[in-house]
């Protein structure tokens, strides 16, 4: 194997490692934070749409029920997150990966 090839290989590995390191350290937590925030916003939306799921009657749930066929993923994820969530503190704490 030529020296040039070996250098090339090391550089590729180094590059991948660096990218992974950067991703793990900086960009992944950043995406995750934004995504969590997005999920929280979505939860607020779902709660505003279907408060009767918690026994709170809403004047608009008759209308928001029309959205249900288009909210399959959201609905499932919403339920899952609600089961999974102990407290708001826990949810906010998840981003720190203790």
């Amino acid at each position: 194997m030529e020296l040039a090839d070996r250098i090339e290989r090391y550089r590729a590995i180094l590059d991948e490692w660096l990218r992974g390191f950067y991703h793990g350290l900086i960009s992944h937590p950043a995406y995750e934070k934004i995504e969590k925030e997005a999920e929280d916003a979505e939860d607020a939306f779902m709660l505003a749409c279907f408060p009767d799921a918690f026994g709170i009657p809403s004047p608009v749930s008759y209308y928001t029920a029309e959205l249900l066929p288009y909210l399959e993923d959201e609905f499932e994820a919403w339920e899952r997150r609600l089961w999974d969530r102990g407290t708001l503190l826990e949810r906010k704490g998840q981003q720190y990966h203790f």
Partner: protein
Amino acid sequence: MEPFVFFGGKGGVGKTTVSCAYGLRCARDGLRTLVVSTDPAHSVTDVFDQPFDDTPQPVEGIEGLDAMQLDPEDEVIRHLDEIRQDLSEQVSAAMVNEINRQLEMAHGTPGAYESALFDRFVDVMRDSDEYDRVVFDTAPSGSTLRLLGLPELLEQWIDRLMYKRRTSIDLFEKAAIGKNEPRRVMEGDPVLARLEGRKAFFEYAGTALREDAAFFLVLNPDELSLNETERSIEEFQEKDLAVRGLIANKLTPEPDPDENGRGARYLRERVKTESAHLETIRETFEPPLVAEIGWRVAEVKGDLLSDVAEELEIETSVEAPTSV
């Protein structure tokens, strides 16, 4: 006067009779008229001696008059079925049950009936091009009335929901940096599109009710009815909807002066209390008393309906609608 005329009031005061009589009068004056009733007791059927359902049908023997009857229960079921249809097209079988539960809950909430009725009212107003006048005989409940004032509130609700939805989609798009596919996209989001459509619907309802509708309250000359009417007038005012006039129905006839039997004495007493109530209405209530209709011996239908129609001092001429 406005193309849409609503008659409201306590249960049993004779809203349906008055609505039908007014419809008859409008039709006689050469207006294409539709009477819409939400009375589950199907009183329009009784008044015209002819069955009606939820599509406009010509009233036999009266030129230019159509009538229809809405059943809130049917409307709720229809709405439910529509969503179920969407559901089976969009959603995987595993989730259908889960979502169905939520759906049934939403349709069991108090107010579902009113929402269903409101929807149909607005639909009828929207598709009323072929009619010059649409007369609504509203359901005898306070919540129907409240619903008429609701479009603005609902619009704000929908606005807030849309804002929330946009925020979350926006964040999902931001979270998908680089080559990642965002979990939700703003463009063509069916949920936003639906909400948008609802918003337009409420906007239309709001303008139509504020600018193209006149409201009349039917009452009987007794204390309960008076109190309820007073409350209704206040409620309407709070919603910026003006009550155009009051109609006193079922007034007791006065006996001839030479009669003095037990029945005559009773009637005289009754008339005295009633005129006191009518006096209160004239003096303290803001909307004018536009008609005083006496008790009829028989059920009001046929010729009697014409008589009642004559007694209604409500104009029939129509202004062009401002909301289209």
